[in-house]
């Protein structure tokens, strides 16, 4: 239900922002017609809080007719200036890979939701990774991410097409957008899922909680779409089937400039190779206190170059000044989940372990056979990192 109270001053701010032309000004009062999808765009711009959306109680909501698994397509700036200005962030493909399985299990379709100022044939890649359909909103206002604009567009789309589930990358963008959408739709959102499955027709979402000390299975039985965010590198990437093209469905959603309430003044992306995003890295070579000196720590960077990985560091190493904080893995640093995590001279304090134990394969080298890191490692090597690292570099060089 949406209501306009007596507080309305007839300022006309809400009329242009409505993506569906559902608000009119009649007798200097906002009046909302049946085209309204409860997206909340008007509520956000109302200066006197005259518009209020009351949500249906969970128990009485009609969930029939919600079908399909959606994946939010996250775009990122393309470093390669010879190509299109944006490209699809890899986590999107991971979401499509798992989304495909979920959709098959449900016998429903998998759709990608693409919001952009200019589509550059993205549907080809999205199709290759499993999308049946791409809902495309192309609008000049979508040139960069903006919470209000993106959430309004997605809310409008979900009202129109009623998906049953929707997945987002647990990136900074995804974690900004998804809760805004979920809040407006009064629907369940589960963050940082490490497992997704279908159980009795519902999306069963598994996630760690309490610093990774326990796992929880979460359901959102009373509301749709059931929404989840998933960290990069958590879901297995499917083999792409090139040539499988998704059907593009163009959606015309009006986006008014006044919805942009947060403006970007400056943006800096860190492009140099050494500082590839650690939370998206496929291989991380990490060092701890045991590396002792900056020089020795630098050797880990050499291994990274040889393997194509990113350098990580324990809090101890950061505290000793061996590496800057941007590389810190752990509770007070970054949580990572690479395919390979090589740990040198890291004893494995709990606060480090919670930040890296989701890694696929952990190989740890430590002098102390009782180091707790061996409790989470798949392979443990008892030995001196200072001897092993140079020899490993040598061997890897020979490989090339």
């Amino acid at each position, binding site marked *: 239900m949406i209501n306009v109270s007596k507080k309305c001053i007839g300022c006309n701010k809400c009329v242009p922002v409505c993506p569906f032309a559902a608000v009119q000004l009649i007798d200097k009062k906002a009046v909302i017609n049946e085209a309204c999808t409860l997206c909340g765009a008007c509520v956000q711009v109302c200066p006197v809080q005259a518009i209020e959306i009351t949500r249906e109680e969970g128990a009485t909501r009609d969930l029939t007719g919600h079908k399909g698994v959606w994946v939010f397509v996250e775009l990122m700036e393309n470093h390669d200036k010879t190509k299109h200005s944006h490209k699809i962030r890899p986590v999107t493909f991971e979401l499509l890979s798992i989304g495909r399985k979920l959709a098959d299990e449900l016998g429903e379709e998998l759709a990608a939701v693409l919001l952009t100022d200019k589509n550059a044939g993205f549907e080809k890649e999205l199709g290759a990774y499993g999308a049946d359909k791409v809902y495309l909103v192309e609008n000049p206002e979508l040139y960069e991410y903006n919470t209000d604009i993106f959430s309004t567009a997605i809310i409008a789309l979900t009202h129109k097409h009623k998906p049953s589930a929707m997945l987002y990358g647990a990136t900074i963008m995804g974690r900004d957008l998804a809760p805004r959408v979920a809040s407006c739709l009064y629907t369940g959102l589960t963050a940082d899922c490490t497992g997704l499955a279908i159980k009795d027709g519902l999306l069963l979402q598994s996630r760690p909680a309490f610093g990774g000390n326990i796992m929880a299975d979460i359901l959102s039985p009373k509301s749709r779409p059931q929404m989840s965010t998933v960290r990069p590198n958590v879901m297995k990437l499917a083999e792409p089937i090139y040539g499988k093209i998704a059907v593009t469905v163009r959606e015309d959603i009006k986006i008014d400039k006044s919805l942009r309430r947060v403006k970007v003044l400056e943006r800096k992306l860190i492009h140099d190779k050494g500082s590839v995003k650690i939370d998206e890295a496929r291989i991380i070579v990490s060092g701890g206190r045991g590396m002792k000196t900056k020089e020795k720590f630098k050797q880990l960077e050499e291994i990274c170059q040889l393997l194509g990985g990113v350098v990580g560091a324990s809090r101890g190493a950061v505290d000793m000044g061996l590496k800057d904080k941007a590389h810190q893995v752990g509770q007070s640093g970054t949580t990572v989940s690479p395919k390979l995590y090589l740990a040198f001279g890291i004893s494995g*304090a*709990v606060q480090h372990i919670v930040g890296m134990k989701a890694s696929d394969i952990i190989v740890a080298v430590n002098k102390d*056979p*009782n180091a*707790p890191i061996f409790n989470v490692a798949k392979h443990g090597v008892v030995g001196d990192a200072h001897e092993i690292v140079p020899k490993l570099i040598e061997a890897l060089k020979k490989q090339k």
Partner: protein
Amino acid sequence: MPSMDAISRNLMLDSLRDYARKNIPYDFIREKDQANEFPDKVLKDMYDHSILGVHLLMVPEEYGGVSGGTYDIYRICEALAHIDLGIATAVFATFLGTDPLNVGGTEDQKKKWLQRIAKENLMVAYAATEPDAGSDLVNLRTRAEHVLKNGQLAGYRITGNKQWISNGGVADLYTVLALAPGGPCWFLVERNMEGFAPGKHEDKHGIRLSNTAALSLDNVYVPKENLIGEVEGQGLLQAQAVFGYTRVMVAAFGLGAGWEAVEQAVRYSQQRIQAGGPLSDKQGYTHKLIVPHAVKLEAARAYIEETSNRLDGGEHGLQTEGAIAKYSATEAGNKAADDAIQAFGGYGYTRDFPVEKIKRDIKITCIYEGTSEVLEMTIYRGRWQEHLKSRGRYYIDLADRMDALHDRNPEVGARAAGLALRALAAVMEECRVQKLTRHQAITFRLGRLISMCELAYVFAGASAKERYSESVRFDTQAWQAMSRIFARDAALQMATEGLAMVLGSVDTAGNIAAAVDMDGVQAVQKGMMADMDLVAVKLKQTFKAK
């Protein structure tokens, strides 16, 4: 002063712990310990009312303090002891030095000095001990002579030497005990007064971060307003009046430092693999080196808490209780630290691990503020009076209460505690009948047995409570198992030692063998091994390997 609300207290504890985490790592302590250096920056921060202001606990609100009660001070002292006992002692010395003022100062004196202590972050020292006057202040040599002006008393000239004064070399203000013509009294002496000179920092076995120095006073003139209470001869009474809770503070030191050692050992034992498994899973290790100490420390905690709460509730003195609290906690802590070294094996004997330092530090808690032996005597004296006054009923009444508690809650070891108390009553009565207290050794030993039995009594009561206090880090199951272990041990020791003590000093023993009820004591030992196993597991859960 009644104690403050739990939330405020715990916020202060959090601030203190956070400060320590950021500023007092073990490497720092180790360096200072080896160099025998006072960490002046740390203490400055602790005394800075805009950074921490720990000293404000002893200053009432109206003078710019935070009005800490005994319970608050116990909790802070325990936390300080976890950090470093030397640093703890430096804070404690100010508490102690402020005491005579709090207890005996006139309104004007409190206003002037307590406000200065609060606002100017003054570090205080408590100067009582002399080369010939330790626990026994009768030989006090420091003299305060009248200085007259126009025939009126204007002030005093103090002359003498003080020894082993904590903060002696670094304090801003000293509360000095001296013999005036009207008897012993406390004087406020400022560091910059003429004729006052601190000696060099002592080279001590432990608490090396605490500055300890001799003081020399050579005709130091203090105005008569600096005589605490402005009446001569009140000094010893003023000192005695606070023994209850100053001893609770040192008890908290034994508790905190002792637990720090045990915690370190528990964490280590889970990482150290020997003969195919961690040491923490081996009974021969845990049931000897860890569990008994954890149990004794928690029994001492229960007693400290009860004594603190009684003092905060307005009871005065509680000298015997303060003595029992300090004696039990510091002896338990000292032995726990000793076994913590053993628990670490060769590593424990090196300075790479803190247990070696804790062991050296904690020894002082069995010495200062009344040596363990002086306390044994104090405890015996206090309770012997009760025994006589009540015609032998004192401990029998407590035993009856334990039996009643056992009927309500059979899980807390109250039956065993009751047996211990009955045996104690019987042994004391036999000592009276046979006049055995002429042997000093028996009186001191009674002091020890009394402490143990009273701890069993208090621990059983505390562990039966529905909700435990904020300081208890164990669940009901664990704390009650600890109480049972303690009570069984108390009953067994009381019965065997009490009996042996009497039999060793008389020709014909009366009915004492039957009175200690050895059969009953043996019967309650049932379940001991299972409880020890349980506590070992709980300790492991509570203090995970880091």
